[in-house]
């Protein structure tokens, strides 16, 4: 089976608030997937469930076809979490050595140091005395200590400067070449676009889009016209209109996705489509992307 991660109808509630709502997706071996969304969209909660740190309130999460809490799974995954904590009183080299001892086939110390670029001096330093960027590199080393097949990065580049960011993505590219599956979360559209083959877009705990970056960007600008109808044949007719991207039915309404709602309305009236209670919606994607792009501008 090529499925590395599988989520089926997964929801997570914290008390009364629902952090993740009915999420399903499959991630295949060797792919690089960005989980994109504004802050508070449910990205970290979803990652935590894939890592087995949180139990879903509903639905099923499988990693390598089994429960993510299994030791066999742990042996094949690595993760860099948002809060990079360090164990105190130990030196960088000691922590790396300690982590390597947990796995059945770890990376060698040489591979690990060259991958993270720590020099001899840094290796001898106490981890608690490292700078933010160095800590992140240590976190990266620990995520890779067990030579994992599947690696999670939760907001890996927050707080990194441009050089450090570029270095990080170069390292990720080499992991990808080795056939590893990489899942990362980000709230930068640009990063998701540049470094992933697939974007799963989250907003308010739901997946609002899932596909390759080009598809997603194509879909962003979409608005829709929706109406109720008794005409069963309406789909064929609607799809023959030039401006229509796609049509679907939801909650008894027909949705016509388009970039030009005015043109679609004109066509509907000209063809005397049996349409009642017509309304026009701005795509949710658009809002989400406005948030995302706005945020990116602020950080620059």
């Amino acid at each position, binding site marked *: 089976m090529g499925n590395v991660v599988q989520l089926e109808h997964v929801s997570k509630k914290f008390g009364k608030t629902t952090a993740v709502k009915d999420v399903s997706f499959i991630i295949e071996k060797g792919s690089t997937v960005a989980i994109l969304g504004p802050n508070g969209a449910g990205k970290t909660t979803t990652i935590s469930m894939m890592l087995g*740190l949180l139990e879903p309130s509903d639905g099923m999460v499988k990693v390598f076809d089994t429960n993510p809490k299994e030791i066999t799974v742990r042996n094949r995954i690595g993760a860099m979490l948002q809060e990079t904590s360090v164990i105190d*009183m130990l030196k960088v080299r*000691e922590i790396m050595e*300690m982590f390597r*001892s947990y796995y*059945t086939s770890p990376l060698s110390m040489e591979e690990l140091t060259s991958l993270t670029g720590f020099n001899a001096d840094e290796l001898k330093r106490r981890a608690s005395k490292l700078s933010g960027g160095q800590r992140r590199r240590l976190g990266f080393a620990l995520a890779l200590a067990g030579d994992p097949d599947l690696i999670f990065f939760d907001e890996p580049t927050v707080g990194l400067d441009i050089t450090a960011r570029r270095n990080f993505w170069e390292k990720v590219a080499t992991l990808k070449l080795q056939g590893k599956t990489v899942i990362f979360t980000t709230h930068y559209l640009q990063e998701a676009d540049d470094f992933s083959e697939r974007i799963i877009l989250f907003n308010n705990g739901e997946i609002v889009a899932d596909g390759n970056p080009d598809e997603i960007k194509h879909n962003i600008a979409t608005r829709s016209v929706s109406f109720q109808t008794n005409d069963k044949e309406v789909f064929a007719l609607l799809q023959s209109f030039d401006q229509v991207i796609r049509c679907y039915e939801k909650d008894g309404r027909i949705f016509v996705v388009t970039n030009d709602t005015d043109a679609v309305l004109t066509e509907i009236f000209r063809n005397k489509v049996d349409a009642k209670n017509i309304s026009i919606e701005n795509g949710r994607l658009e809002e989400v992307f406005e948030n995302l792009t706005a945020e990116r501008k602020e950080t620059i």
Partner: protein
Amino acid sequence: MNAIMTQCKFEMIRIFRNPYFVFWTLFMPILFYFIFTNIVNTGVPDQGEWQAYYLMSMTTFSVMGSAIMNFGIRMVQEQTEGWSTFMKLTPFPSWAYFTAKMFGQLTMHLLSIIIVFIAGFLINGVSLTIDQWLFSGLWILIASIPFLAIGSLIGTMKKVETAGGVSNIIYLALASLGGMWMPIRIFPDFLQKVAEWLPSYHFASGAWEIILGNVPDWRSFLILIGYLIVFMLLATYIRGKQEN
């Protein structure tokens, strides 16, 4: 197994590098020992016996400190700083992590016992038979386990500051009321009764009996085992509750 050994090794390194450990569990007991056997005139008739007796008091004081203070506070620290969460992502199971911590801690107890014993020998030339050295050391090592259970109970606390404060109070209260600083026979009646129910009194008392050539009282065994069970159950219960 290999991973557990490695973990043990690093646990010990961590304890040794902790300045509080060195201060509270080595420096302070040895300083107290020096003061109360050499500087303060206690007026005891048998000076040699007092020196051996007080060495046992200070060794138990040292080991109890490291068990309650170090073990518990470190657990809270690892919890609050997200280290425990991070550990859950590795294939190293949490029971193994806990076991390694316990072993590391017990090895440190053994080291403290040896160091304080040597200090007693060097400062006052305390002389005991080989058996007495061995059995009193062994007693202190094994009977320190209930105090690790107290430590793990403190380890369930949410904040490092609270854990630090609470463990300090428990530690000093147990040490003074349990007669580790001064013999309970000079306590008022009421406090003597209290002491006889404290684990610290029985912890030290076992060692005192051994150097007098006796076997620790059966009540010491019972009370220490009782405390061990109660604290272990409590810690497991609270931890289980926190995880849900």
